């Protein structure tokens, strides 16, 4: 039997595109090895290794931002502005989570070294999800992300709440994965390909059966991703899981899983944009429900973690509005406001949950509203940071949350989705009630507990809180360069921020503030991404000449340029052959 016919020419791989994921995943491997040989009872080596690995990964992402877009492995890994920024957000989320995790896990008496490799792999899974157009990679990335999260949610095994959280998350997550996989199978059946851009091609055939398969397939995929992003009919797990999981895991979950799920949703919906006549009305209803229902429920909650759980569901609704506005008129409205919202949301979420870990003490933690009474007296800094984060969650000017919400509101109006814009505004007002409830608790004078929880603020937690706060404030200055970069108008906006950042404040903040932070340029970009570790702003001269200038966009036919172009594999699409 002659088997040479099955020989496949090895694809020319663009390793630079894959590098960030490889770095994060292999940092996880190294961290696991250190965990095996570490001196007992200390995770310091693991943490520093992980932080350095994440810093290098963030640096490799920042360096790529000047490069042209492209893909490798036939769309399995993708480099475009949205994917780079979202990957950077995920790396940053993991980075900050590690900073405050150790002291918290130690107080909770669950200092397992395995937490760090699992979180790193989870991050890698999320990074794969936001940077792929291939349904196979989307699924594998989702599973890597989710399975690590299931385990981390159940890390506090001696607590029934943590176990409940893990088992609920696991069962519902597996259910959602099944939906997603079924949807992928149907789409594959309709298109014969795992690549998302084939949906449009199959839809253009105008064949009745194919269309039905596509509608069902995309619908099931939306259900699966809706579970992950906690959109409203599929949100039931979120508050319980958020409350039961260890707080640092909750913060990581709320930020990373949401960013990854929304990123994947963006790819899927962009691929299926031709079918928008079918899914757009449904998603508009889902967005309205996702914004309204959790906000109403959150007003009656007494547990801060639960409140933030509902708040994160509502935020998913706001993000969905931005996404729908972009998909309603993709030419007019870009994805940049949605990505900007995600950046701001991730910073606030990590900062807020970091502050919640302050109450952990002797294996217990206090996350009821009453546990925060007197926080102002105990920790003025923590209370101040909390006010700032809550302000950003509400959307008070000069915080990142304000510009993020304003941008999405504008997009919704410009896209003709005025109803969604109105609902968003009303819900922002409703949410003030419970957000301010958290602040009020921090400033209530009397303490109900005889033994106050959490007496000192560990340095890692202090750093995370301050860095996130600087990021929340500083991101306003980077609104213009971020948006310019994402919309592709100025591909060099990120690689030389001093020039663009100086124009940012004058354009955006001239009416609102006078420079709330004394030293915006050198401080805020690293705070946004990875303070301390990676070189903050690489001048363009430092960049290695990694990409060929004649890189083509993935949509154009890449067959001819396959020899030179480092981004596209030789086979335009290997998937249909199987």
């Amino acid at each position, binding site marked *: *039997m*002659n*088997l040479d*016919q*099955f*020989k*496949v*020419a*090895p*694809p020319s*791989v663009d390793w630079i595109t*894959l590098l960030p*994921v490889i770095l994060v*995943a292999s940092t*996880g*491997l190294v961290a*696991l090895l250190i965990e095996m040989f570490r001196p007992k*009872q200390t995770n310091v080596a693991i943490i520093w290794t992980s932080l350095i690995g994440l810093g290098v990964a963030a640096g490799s992402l920042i360096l790529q931002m000047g490069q042209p877009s492209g893909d*490798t*492995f*036939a769309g*399995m*890994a993708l480099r475009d502005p949205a994917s780079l920024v979202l990957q950077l957000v995920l790396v940053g989320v993991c980075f900050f989570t590690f900073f405050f995790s150790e002291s918290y896990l130690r107080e909770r*008496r*669950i*200092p*397992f070294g*395995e937490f760090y*490799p*699992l979180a790193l*792999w*989870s991050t*890698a*899974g999320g990074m*794969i999800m936001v940077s792929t157009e*291939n349904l*196979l*990679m989307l699924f*594998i*990335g989702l*599973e*890597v992300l989710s*399975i*690590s999260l*299931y*385990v981390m949610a*159940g*890390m506090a*095994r*001696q607590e029934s709440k943590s176990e409940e959280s*893990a088992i609920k998350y696991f069962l519902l997550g597996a259910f959602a994965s099944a939906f997603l996989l079924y949807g992928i199978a149907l789409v594959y059946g309709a298109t014969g390909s795992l690549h998302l851009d084939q949906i449009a091609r199959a839809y253009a055939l105008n064949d009745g059966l194919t269309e039905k398969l596509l509608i069902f397939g995309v619908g099931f995929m939306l259900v699966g991703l809706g579970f992950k992003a906690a959109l409203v009919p599929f949100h039931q797990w979120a508050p319980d899981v958020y409350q039961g999981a260890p707080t640092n895991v909750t913060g990581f979950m709320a930020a990373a899983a949401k960013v990854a799920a929304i990123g994947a949703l963006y790819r899927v919906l962009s691929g299926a944009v031709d079918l928008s006549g079918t899914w757009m009305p449904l998603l508009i209803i889902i967005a309205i429900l996702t914004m309204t229902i959790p906000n109403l429920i959150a007003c009656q909650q007494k547990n801060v973690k639960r409140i933030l759980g509902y708040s994160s569901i509502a935020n998913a609704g706001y993000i969905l509005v931005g996404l729908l506005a972009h998909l309603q008129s993709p030419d007019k409205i870009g994805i940049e406001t949605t990505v900007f919202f995600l950046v701001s949301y991730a910073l606030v979420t990590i900062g807020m949950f970091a502050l919640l870990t302050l109450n952990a003490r002797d294996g217990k933690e206090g996350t009821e509203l009453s546990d925060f009474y007197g926080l102002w007296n105990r920790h003025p800094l923590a209370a101040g940071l909390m006010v700032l984060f809550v302000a950003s969650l509400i959307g008070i000017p000069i915080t990142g949350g304000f510009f993020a919400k304003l941008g999405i509101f504008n997009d919704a109006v410009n896209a003709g989705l005025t109803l969604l814009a109105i609902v968003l505004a009303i819900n922002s007002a409703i949410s003030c009630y419970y957000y301010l409830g958290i602040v009020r608790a921090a400033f209530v004078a009397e303490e109900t507990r005889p033994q106050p929880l959490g007496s000192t603020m560990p340095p890692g937690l202090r750093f995370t809180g301050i860095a996130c706060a600087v990021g929340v404030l500083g991101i306003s200055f980077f609104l213009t360069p971020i948006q310019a970069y994402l919309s592709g108008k100025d591909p060099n906006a990120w690689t030389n921020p001093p020039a663009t950042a100086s124009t940012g404040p004058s354009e955006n903040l001239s009416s609102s503030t006078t420079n709330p932070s004394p030293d915006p340029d050198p401080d805020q970009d690293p705070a946004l991404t990875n303070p301390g570790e990676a070189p903050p702003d690489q001048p363009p001269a430092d960049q290695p000449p990694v990409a060929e200038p004649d890189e083509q966009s993935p949509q154009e036919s890449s067959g001819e340029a396959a020899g030179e172009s480092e981004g596209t*594999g030789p*086979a335009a699409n*290997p998937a249909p*052959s*199987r």
Partner: protein
Amino acid sequence: MTSAQITFLILAGIAAISAIGVVALNSPVRSALVLVVNFFVLAFLYFSLGAQLLGITQILVYAGAIMVLFLFVIMLLNLGNTNSAIQKKDGKPLIGIICGIGLFGLIASQIILPMGPRGQTAGAAPGYGSPQAVGYTLFTNYAWAFEITSILLLVGIVGSILLAKRRLKS
């Protein structure tokens, strides 16, 4: 009747009988053992269709790994002969039988209809699905997915160890 058809009928018959045995036998251990037989016969069916890799995988993964796990669980949980598995009489068996017949009819129609007078014999190229062919594809165009899947398995292993580990004393 060709020898291939006879082989198929024998293998398919054993597979069907053992599949019925899985649900019909009362003892969980026996059910599991009959399921092993079913998986083996199914693997031979794959071999007879020329899908060697699929057959080998079936034996290694299902008969080897998964069924051993099943037996472990059954024996560890001490699920011997019990009568508690016999359920009360209600509508469930009837619905189950109707669904089963419906599924059987659906699958049978997809097999029998193409065998009719207009039946065309579709076949893959010789060697399709062989270990070499799959290997070439897996380690070229799908190398990235393959490597990430290995991370996925590692997550599963580390996660199960973390969750099963004894409580930390400190």
